């Protein structure tokens, strides 16, 4: 537990130092925060579902903004991004490395809160709220509940059965990650990503509850209802599965050699949970 | 053209019979057998009606019924009969009642299901023979397969499961490839004319480029070669025959084998003439090898049914040889040999059935000297054996003689026709050898096995089964003229379709003028159905198919085959003195 927290802190500090240290004058304008946008005006591109691009008539700005020139954003957003992404990545690594399930759950909660922050940076305010409310709140509580229920210390966390398969997959994951990153790296850049520049006019309610709510209840009403049914089914499913009577005493899974199966079965019968 | 209701009724009758049978309670076996027999007899009468209204002088399809079935795909439930298929239809309806009568006491368990399977089989066979729509043909082809599988699989001998599975797998392999080829033709026709249809008369006009023709023809040829059975694909036949009950093997040999050759005549050759012209030498070679090989191996058999199975391989080799002569005597000989083979081999199997009912064994060694005890049976068995051996005056000879004669004088269609026919003619000797060997082993010699001492001769039922067969064999042998006359116009039309498409040299997908119903009737081909919403995309196979055409020149063996019509004195009707 302690070593995890220390590692997280260390990563944060390193990022902080790197950010400040590298703030020499870049090729672009000086490091003031608020820098007037050269040429003003933004050329809006709307891409509809079928993938063909058509230019939306320029919003009443004085001149079409040159898409390729990087508009300098405040360093604050970048700093915030690095901070939150550190939290997210650190939490994720903690989740999968901690031996103790509770620590894992707690670090997962941290990750989700970090992700909520990232959503906020992307102006997905409603979703940030939902993230905190549903994910961190409800689902993680569920996890905590179950972890508490089956809190058995694990002797050896990592499964190395079938090592060849695992090494193969390690290589695959590395390639996958690298491939995704390099690809995403070349995605068309949108400097106003974290800027509220075009958050005006019809996009005023972008990302807010009003905007998403309007969208959900008009265009995507049917999927919305469908998801509600999915949730209903999930609830019933969970109820049925977890209910004690219905658990048929499945034939005990053959223990590894040496452990007499009888003992396993006995153990189950012996300490059956008191009826909930 | 009148009486379009006739063929569907012919098809529906066995199915109605099957339905009626389902209502009959299970233990009423004799009543069930009665119902089945009556249905098949009624079907036979209706088929006689078909023959009555069939005008032998007309070449085109007659009694055509053209109902729409699946308009979206352009599938029409089109049935029709012409000179080539009329006799096969009659053979089917003629054999089924006989077989049902012969199976009266042979089948003890699950009688009702057996009869239902048989009637469905009959419907399938009739449908396949009369189908003029590729889709209908394929459906009927599969409908035929299922009951046959049950007949072998349920009521067969010891190794019936192995035999029935082998039978189904063999046929299925072939028919699936055929299905691919059918779709390819369907799509190609749709793309060139915008009309998506399976109608054979329209598809005949389609001329595919060389490489496409080669692949499609091979797909069709494999499906039909397995059914014929041509030499390397025949090993399913002996197993299927040995394990099938008597009635099963009679229908299998009598009718089902004919679909192979019928398929060649109706589908493979007219649709892909260049390919069939190119592969003619190889197919003829396989057929002739089949004749000699079948006869030789038959001679080495100890099991009578296997012996007769291999004899079928040998006989149908003659039919293939005759068919590929591509002239009137050859093709008519081939069709006639098919019909006569249907009669003689059914007779042989029924005879073996008679012996099997009494002795429950098929080994030659168990018989001997039966002539003394069963004179009537001996007479029938002798006539049927000699008919099968091709004794002149009986039906076998006419078919073989015409096939050999046609093949011999077909110098252009088959290179080295003379030699191949000479080797095939040796099949006449080998035929006599193994058939007489069988006959002697069963009938002649002293009675060695004591069980044969008190074997009873044929009872009235069995004789009534044999009499029509024998009459057919004699009548076909003595006076074959009306049968050949009925085939003549259809065969000549087939040959002319083949030659016009062969003469058309263009190596692209196009319609050959002068073929199909329009040419016959003279008015322009108006598309019978509106094209479905949007033509299916180009099947990937096409690009792969076209690619090799550019690089690999078509595998002509050096000399590019003459473009002129295959001459030869017997090529066209009336050209000889």
């Amino acid at each position, binding site marked *: 537990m302690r070593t995890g927290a220390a590692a997280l802190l260390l990563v944060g500090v390193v990022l902080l130092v790197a950010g400040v240290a590298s703030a020499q004058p870049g090729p672009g304008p000086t490091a003031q925060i608020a820098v007037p946008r050269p040429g003003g005006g933004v050329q809006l591109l709307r891409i509809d579902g079928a993938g063909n691009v058509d230019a939306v008539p320029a919003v009443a700005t004085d001149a079409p903004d040159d898409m390729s020139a990087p508009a300098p954003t405040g360093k604050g957003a970048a700093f915030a991004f690095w901070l939150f992404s550190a939290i997210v990545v650190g939490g994720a690594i903690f989740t999968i490395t901690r031996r103790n399930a509770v620590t894992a759950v707690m670090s997962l909660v941290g990750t989700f809160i970090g992700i909520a922050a990232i959503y906020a940076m992307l102006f997905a305010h409603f979703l940030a709220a939902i993230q905190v409310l549903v994910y961190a709140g409800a689902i993680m509580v569920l996890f905590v509940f179950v972890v508490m229920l089956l809190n058995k210390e694990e002797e050896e966390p990592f499964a190395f059965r079938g090592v060849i398969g*695992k090494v193969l997959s390690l290589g*695959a*994951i590395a390639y996958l990650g690298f491939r995704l990153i390099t690809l995403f790296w070349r995605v068309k850049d949108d400097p106003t990503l974290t800027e509220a520049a075009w958050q005006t006019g019809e996009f005023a309610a972008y990302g807010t509850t009003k905007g998403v709510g309007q969208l959900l209840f008009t265009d995507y009403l049917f999927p919305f209802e469908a998801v509600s049914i999915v949730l209903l089914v999930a609830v019933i499913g969970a109820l049925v599965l977890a209910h004690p009577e219905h658990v048929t005493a499945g034939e005990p899974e053959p223990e590894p050699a040496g452990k007499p199966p009888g003992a396993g079965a006995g153990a189950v019968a012996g300490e059956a949970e008191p009826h909930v | 053209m009148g009486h379009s209701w006739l063929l569907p009724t012919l098809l529906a009758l066995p199915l109605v019979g099957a339905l009626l049978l389902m209502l009959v309670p299970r233990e009423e076996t004799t009543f069930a057998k009665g119902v089945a027999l009556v249905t098949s007899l009624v079907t036979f009468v209706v088929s006689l009606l078909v023959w009555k209204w069939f005008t032998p002088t007309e070449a085109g399809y007659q009694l055509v019924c053209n109902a729409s079935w699946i308009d979206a795909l352009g599938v029409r439930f089109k049935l029709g009969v012409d000179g080539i298929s009329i006799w096969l239809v009659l053979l089917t309806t003629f054999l089924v009642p006989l077989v049902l009568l012969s199976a009266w006491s042979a089948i003890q368990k699950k009688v009702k299901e057996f009869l239902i399977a048989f009637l469905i089989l009959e419907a399938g066979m009739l449908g396949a023979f009369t189908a003029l729509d590729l889709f209908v043909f394929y459906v009927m082809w599969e409908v035929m397969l299922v009951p046959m599988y049950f007949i072998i699989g349920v009521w067969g001998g010891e190794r019936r499961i192995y035999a029935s599975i082998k039978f189904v797998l063999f046929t299925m392999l072939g028919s699936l490839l055929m299905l691919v080829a059918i779709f390819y033709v369907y799509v190609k026709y749709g793309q060139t004319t915008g009309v998506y249809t399976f109608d054979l008369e329209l598809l005949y006009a389609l001329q595919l480029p060389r490489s496409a023709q080669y692949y499609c023809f091979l797909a069709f040829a494999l499906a039909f070669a397995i059914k014929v059975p041509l030499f390397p694909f025949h090993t399913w036949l002996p197993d299927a025959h040995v394990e099938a009950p008597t009635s099963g093997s009679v229908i299998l040999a009598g009718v089902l084998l004919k679909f192979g050759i019928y398929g060649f005549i109706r589908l493979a050759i007219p649709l892909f003439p260049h390919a069939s012209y190119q592969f003619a030498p190889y197919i003829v070679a396989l057929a002739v090898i089949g004749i000699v090989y079948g006869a030789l*191996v038959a001679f080495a058999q100890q099991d009578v049914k296997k012996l007769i199975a291999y004899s079928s391989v040998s006989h149908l080799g003659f039919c293939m040889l005759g068919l590929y002569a591509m*002239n009137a005597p050859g093709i*008519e000989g081939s069709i006639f040999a098919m019909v006569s083979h249907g009669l003689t081999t059914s007779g042989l199997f029924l005879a073996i059935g008679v012996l099997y009912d009494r002795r429950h064994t098929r080994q030659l060694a168990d018989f001997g000297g039966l002539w003394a005890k069963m004179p009537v049976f001996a007479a029938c068995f002798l006539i049927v054996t000699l008919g099968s051996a091709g004794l002149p005056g009986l039906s076998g000879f006419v078919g073989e003689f015409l096939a050999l004669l046609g093949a*011999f004088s077909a110098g252009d269609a088959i290179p080295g026709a003379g030699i191949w026919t000479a080797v095939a003619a040796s099949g006449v000797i080998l035929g006599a050898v193994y058939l007489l060997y069988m006959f002697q082993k069963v009938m002649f010699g002293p009675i060695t096995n004591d069980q044969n001492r008190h074997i009873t001769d044929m009872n009235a039922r069995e004789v009534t089964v044999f009499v029509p067969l024998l009459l057919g064999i004699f009548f076909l042998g003595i006076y074959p003229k009306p049968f050949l*006359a009925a085939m003549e116009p259809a065969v000549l039309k087939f040959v002319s379709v083949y030659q016009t498409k062969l003469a058309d040299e263009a190596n692209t997908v196009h319609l050959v003028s002068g073929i199909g119903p329009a040419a016959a009737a003279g008015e322009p081909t108006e598309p019978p159905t509106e094209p479905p919403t949007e033509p299916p995309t180009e099947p990937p196979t096409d690009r792969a198919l076209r690619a090799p055409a550019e690089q690999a020149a078509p595998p002509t063996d050096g000399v590019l085959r003459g473009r002129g019509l295959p001459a030869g*004195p017997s090529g066209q009707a009336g050209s000889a*003195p």
Partner: protein
Amino acid sequence: MPTLATSPTDWPLHWIVLLPLLGAAINLLVGRKLARRTVHLIACGSVLAALLLSLSAVVGSLYPLWKASQTGGAAPELRDLFYTWIQSGSLRVEMAFLLDPLSAVMILTITFVGFLIHVYSTGYMAHDPRPAAYFGYLNLFTAAMLLLVLGDSLPVMFIGWEGVGLCSYLLIGFWFDKEKYANAGRKAFIVNRIGDFGFLLGILLLYANVGAVDYAGLEASLAQLVGANSPLLTSYAGTGLSLTFFAGLFLFVGACGKSAQIPLYVWLPDAMAGPTPVSALIHAATMVTAGVYMVARLGFLFLTTPEVMMIIAAVGATTAIVAAVIGFAQTDIKKVLAYSTVSQLGFMFAAVGCGAFTAGVFHLFTHAFFKAGLFLAAGSVMHAMGDRTEIMGMGGLRKKIPITHATFFIYCLAIAGVVPFAGFFSKDEILLGAYVAQLPYWPEWFGRAIWAVLAVTALFTAFYMWRLYFLVFAGESRADEATQRQIHESPATMTGPLVVLAIGAVLLGFLGLPHIGGLPNAFAAWLSGTFGAWQGTVLPEAHASTGTTITLMAIALASALIGIGAAWALYRNGPGALVQRLVVVLAPLHRWVANKFYVDELYDLLIIRPFRLLAKLLFAVVDRVFIDTLFVNGTGWVTRTFGRLARRAQNGDVQRYFVAMLLGVVGIVSFATCGKPRFEATTAGGTAMRFVADVGAGPGANGAKVEWDFTGDGKIDATGADVTWSFPAPGSHAVTLRVEDGLFREVKQLKRVITVAAVVLEAAAAPAEGAVN
């Protein structure tokens, strides 16, 4: 049967065939229920009716036509179109009948001798359990033989041809309960079938090239071919030999099969397993002569190929002498007669081979009488000796069965060729015909060589026939007491036909008197109706000088007498001391001859055993192993093994499944994003080339930027997916294509060297309207 005065082209000849057929049908179908007498009556009656009908046809209608033809009228023939048998494409085979002098001789022989044999059989088969079947087959045989002879085209003859083969099979194996007899029947049928194979090929060859199957049509087209000296005749299919050579050869193979000539004669001796009247009718008088009839009938075809005629003559002569030699050492009465038949047939073929068709047919005619008589006499001898055929166990029957003895004596004189008897005249005609034979391309000595062989054979024939006579009739009886006591003369129904045939053997000779001193040769005159047309071209018979004819007749008579004398000396009272010493001295030769030169064993070794072995081998190896186990069950095994492999991968470990999913995802991602650009270059006329770039169909395709660099200088020369660029000069140029992905901004480059068509030069000169292909 009143003589039906109908026109020559519509004479109901088919009734001649239908009558015995009807008799056969009745006997075979319902015969078992009828009394033995009615069966006899039906059988003999139908043949008698056929005989009378034939007589009325020949005497009533044909003879006047013949007389007219003698004084320059048309060739005498009666035709009858019964119905059209096969009509397919340009092939048209009618079930038509033709009665001309040749077939008249044949049908009279068949019906007359046949009737006598039917009468004889009623006696011989008196206590046989299956008379209906026997007489049914006999009638069927007569019908088939008549059909063969009266047929107007080769296929119809072929029906008769195989029909008689079938009947001989049934009759040889009539007592089928003995395995040996059944085998003999099967052997006969198969050897006949080999002959029929040749016959069939002959028909096919003729039809394929000449387009006709009936005799008239064949003769006409052949004459036309000969007239036009067509390449078919000079060298058919580039073999340097004429078409008729091959057709003739194949037809001759058919004749050999049927008439038991070398190499297909092995079945005839074994055919003696059948009842004796059967041997008399089928294996002496009628069926075996079918081959000679066919060659005579198709004489016009054989005459166009002297080579085949040479082969026929040679085969005939060798068969004659070989069979005669074998006849020396035979001890079974029927075997001796069988080999004598083979030998006499050799004579006939030699005659026909030398072009002496009339002589051949005349000998056939006379031979039918005395050989049938010999067989019937042998039958009555066996009847007397309790069905034993061993001549060594006989002897001294002269007094016991006088009538049989007398007739046997006459027949032996006839067959030996003693003057007044038929054999002398017919054999002499053949010897004369052979001696003077001179066909185109034939060496001069060939005719005389054939004559010499035949003369020696005539001597041998006289010897072994009289050896048989003395062993059976002369000296004391060597049989044991029991058989000696019960020896009795055969009943009237058997001896009657013997006497009639004996009379025939005596008188018939005078029909064909030699051409010396204005003696009329009625037979030659009668047959000139058929052979007349192409006879004259060949037979210089008329201009053989009287001197040579007389000397030849003297030699023939002398050889006959020497033969008889030698036989008398050796065997006058049983196998004398001289014979014993001879047998010892010539022991190896004797053994060879007694075992028929081991021909049967040779065939068995060379043909039958390898055939069986091949059949078993083919079945076991090719069918079972090669196709079944390898391909059919093999595919089954392959699918099973792959199935088992796949199953082992599914071991329930959830994470292993996840790995599989992961690999899938990685695969898709990498595949979707790294397609290489491609382009195709096609000439657009002149030195211009049209380039079409293929940027694939991924999400990035539609926004993609395509840049081309044709000049290799790194600068962008053109943009766009479909560009036409004209090169300064032909030859090879480096073309680079740069594609920038619409979505991921990924830039891919492809450099390829393309050759601009070198032929561009004159295209450039010609107006470049651009033959775009």
